[in-house]
């Protein structure tokens, strides 16, 4: 792997970039489909693809756990729920409901304005436009390993300082590794494993309280949703037939 990273300095195709563009095109393209189509079922399908592509983007950004979570809860749960709703209300008249052209024009105008502002903001800061941070860290590590190997070949003994330096570089390069789900789990129960590693920083509190609040919130929502959507056979026995 180290040879590969060394080679990153040469002008070769950056596969990460390629994968990003492919996935981003999927995400954006199907988002456009979602917006433009008037058929609610196709909209839902396009949404699925768009969300799945978004989860791919998350994987590309190193957020494996969140990506899988997005797949499972968002795509597998929420959108199934949505489609369920679509199917329950899918009558011919409602599948395609056209809006007035004025709505479209207004929406596109305002949306376009917002998008232009956001896009401008996104590319405002030069450091954000491209990142060689990870590549630099990896290259530094690889170079150091090469140096050590050369030393070793020369018959020198590797000192403790050199090992420590190697470890520091390793940690720096390790920051680019995908986040461990174990750390996320610990953070959810109130321990920040990632921050506690640095002794000079005080240990940060995790997300126990938000986690609990979200749990309660979900429970409340479940109850509320069940209450809202419950079948009222008694009062509408005759009317619904």
């Amino acid at each position, binding site marked *: 792997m180290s040879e590969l990273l060394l080679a990153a300095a040469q002008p070769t195709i*950056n596969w990460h970039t390629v994968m990003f563009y492919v996935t981003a095109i999927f995400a954006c393209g199907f988002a456009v489909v979602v917006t433009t189509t008037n058929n609610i079922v196709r909209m839902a399908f396009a*949404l699925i693809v768009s969300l799945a592509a978004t989860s791919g*983007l998350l994987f590309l*950004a190193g957020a494996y756990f969140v990506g899988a979570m997005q797949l499972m809860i968002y795509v597998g749960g929420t959108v199934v729920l949505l489609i369920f709703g679509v199917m329950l209300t899918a009558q011919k008249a409602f599948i395609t409901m056209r809006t007035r052209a004025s709505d479209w024009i207004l*929406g596109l105008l305002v949306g376009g304005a917002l*998008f232009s502002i956001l896009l401008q903001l996104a590319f405002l800061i030069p450091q954000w436009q491209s*990142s060689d*941070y990870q590549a630099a860290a990896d290259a530094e590590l690889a170079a150091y390993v090469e140096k050590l190997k050369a030393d070793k070949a020369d018959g020198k003994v590797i000192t403790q300082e050199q090992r420590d330096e190697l470890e520091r570089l390793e940690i720096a390069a390790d920051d680019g590794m995908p986040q461990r789900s174990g750390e996320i789990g610990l953070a959810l129960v109130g321990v920040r494993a990632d921050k506690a590693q640095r002794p000079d920083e005080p240990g940060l509190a995790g997300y126990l309280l938000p986690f609990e609040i*979200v749990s309660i919130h979900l429970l409340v929502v479940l109850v509320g949703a069940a209450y809202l959507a419950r079948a009222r056979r008694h009062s509408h026995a005759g009317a619904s037939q």
Partner: protein
Amino acid sequence: MSFLYEPIGLSHYLAVGAFLFVCGIVCMATKRNALGILIGIELVLNGAILNFIGFASPYFRDENLGLDGHLIALFVIVLAAAEAAVALAIALNFYNNHATIDVDRASELKG
């Protein structure tokens, strides 16, 4: 095709996020179907998640959000699920009571 040789940056993620966000907004603004609006909201939330993960990613910035970004994204996902459940319940209730899913017909509370 020279852009394929460059590593992407945070801006790219923000741009995609912005695009999804705007698509969601436009979707909300141009749909009459209540579920269509719901789908627009999901897109908006996805744009937000992308932004958080972009800021949290160690690939793009040295001082990234780290776990904080991931956790906020997780909460967003979970709350989106909750929101979808409630919104769906409201939509179904509306459908049961008015035999339509058109939000323009939901004007009983209008003053």
